[in-house]
């Protein structure tokens, strides 16, 4: 280890082996999971029953508990762990797809990043199993345009993996699973902000410099700068900067929503609860009825301080699937 890595404030050994080493610890800590270390794929120790649709997701590492922490009953069957903030390779996705196929087809859940899309696409082209895929692109900070890469996939991924995972666990056939996945993808929106940057182990220093009195609005989940930089503001104002763009983008009043106030990794839970309190006030004022809530670190950017808000307009079917039992390291209820 060079002197530069020595000085990094991280619980790591060899910077080049962070993901590999973390998967070793994950497998040791979680007997319900199995890790294909060669391909860096996290799998259920006990595969689901034959004849059920399997769910594969994955992406760059550094977003934990996403995706490996959502492998288990009622959610994913496999998660491919790329390098930090780098999408997995087609080999990994292919290995995951073959490992979990139970004869009823495999759904790829792909966050909309050029790299993720292309790597999953190449794997799907090579797979023997019947593969369908759904794209998550919920980030309202990004312009929704045909001429660009389109919106990023962020917080909605967690909600989608839960709801679609429940449908697959119930035995819904592939076309049903795809229909529900598309519906969730269409009905969810997110917006995020950062108080600090984060440090990618291989880079060894924060991705961007942020003065003590400024913050970034409209960030993704890769430690990248946001759409604009503004002065640090108190929580009620930050809540507006998250809620307003989402409600501007779609009409959430009326029907019930599932709300997730997600921490980016470096903000204490105390602050996340406080933020949710501010968000809840604004949603109530706007006539949005929150039926289910998650507050905590569910899809992170390493040690970035900040948070994101995701709202999903949920119909009865989605709410029922949301409430269905789930048993993963990151999300668990009902068993």
């Amino acid at each position, binding site marked *: 280890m060079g002197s530069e890595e020595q000085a990094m404030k991280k619980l790591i050994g060899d910077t080049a082996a962070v993901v590999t080493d973390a998967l070793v610890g994950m497998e040791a800590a979680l007997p319900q999971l199995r890790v294909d270390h060669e391909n860096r794929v996290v799998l259920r120790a006990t595969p689901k029953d034959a004849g059920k649709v399997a769910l594969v997701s994955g992406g760059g590492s550094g977003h934990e508990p996403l995706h490996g922490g959502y492998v288990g009953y009622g959610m994913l069957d496999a998660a491919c762990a790329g390098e930090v903030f780098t999408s997995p*390779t087609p080999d990994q996705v292919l290995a995951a797809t073959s490992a979990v196929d139970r004869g009823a087809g495999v759904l790829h859940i792909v966050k909309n990043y050029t*790299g993720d899309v292309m*790597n999953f696409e190449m794997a799907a082209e090579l797979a023997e199993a019947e593969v369908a895929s759904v794209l998550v692109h919920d980030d309202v900070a990004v312009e929704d345009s045909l001429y660009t890469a389109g919106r990023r996939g962020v917080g909605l991924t967690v909600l989608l993996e839960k709801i679609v995972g429940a449908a697959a666990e119930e035995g819904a056939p592939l076309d049903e699973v795809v229909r529900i996945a598309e519906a969730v993808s269409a009905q969810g929106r997110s917006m995020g902000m950062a108080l600090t940057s984060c440090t990618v182990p291989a880079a060894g220093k924060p991705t961007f410099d942020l003065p003590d009195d400024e913050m970034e609005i409209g960030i993704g989940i890769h430690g990248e700068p946001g759409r604009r930089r503004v002065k640090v503001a108190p929580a009620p104002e930050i809540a507006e900067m998250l809620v307003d763009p989402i409600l501007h983008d779609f009409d959430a009043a009326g029907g019930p929503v599932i709300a997730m106030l997600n921490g980016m990794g470096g903000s204490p839970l105390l602050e996340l609860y406080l933020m949710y309190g501010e968000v809840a006030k604004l949603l109530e004022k706007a006539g949005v009825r929150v039926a289910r809530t998650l507050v905590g670190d569910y899809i992170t950017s390493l040690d970035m301080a900040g948070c994101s808000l995701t709202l999903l307009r949920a119909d009865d079917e989605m709410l029922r699937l949301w409430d269905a039992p789930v048993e993963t390291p990151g999300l668990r209820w009902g068993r």
Partner: protein
Amino acid sequence: MAFDIAALGRWVALFRDRVSDEQERLTALDSAIGDADHGANMARGTAAAVAKLESATPTTVGEFGKAVGMALVSTVGGASGPLYGTFFLRFGASGGDGAELDGPALAAALRAGLEGVVSRGKAEPGDKTMIDAMTPAVDAFEAGASDLVSAARSAARAARAGSDATEPLVARKGRASYLGERSAGHLDPGSVSTALLFEALAAAAEEVSA
């Protein structure tokens, strides 16, 4: 004069060397408008490609392209893995069973590689991607393909100029597009690694001709 398999191998090795020298710079550029991994991605991928060429010992251009392309696809991930991987896979397919490439054949292989990148990534020139360096480079190579060394040199110059020209652009593809107007004022990292790819080609051509 022509590029045989050994010379193609030198090209990849020289590309690896340049990427490794410039790794921090590539990451710094990607930190500004991306996610701070382009240096690490390319260093990992080109090292794997060189290792693969040593173990696979290809004897045809097709085998060469497959070895390099698959090594990149399998180890890089991200956007650049499938893109550079596709570049070399198509490059190899164009060269086919031949054991070397003369100027025009090399031009055709580079063109095939570029077309692969375009069809995989669906970017257009001006979107602020590696395409903006690769397109003028391949054009320049074709224009001078009769003299390998000078064609490669002018391709390298064109790639670098194309990369430099990405600075003022507002990105429409890749991660930088999420920044909107804020992406202007920064070089596209992938275009810089593409400039390194063509500079390595020119250096390899000089070695071949020496």
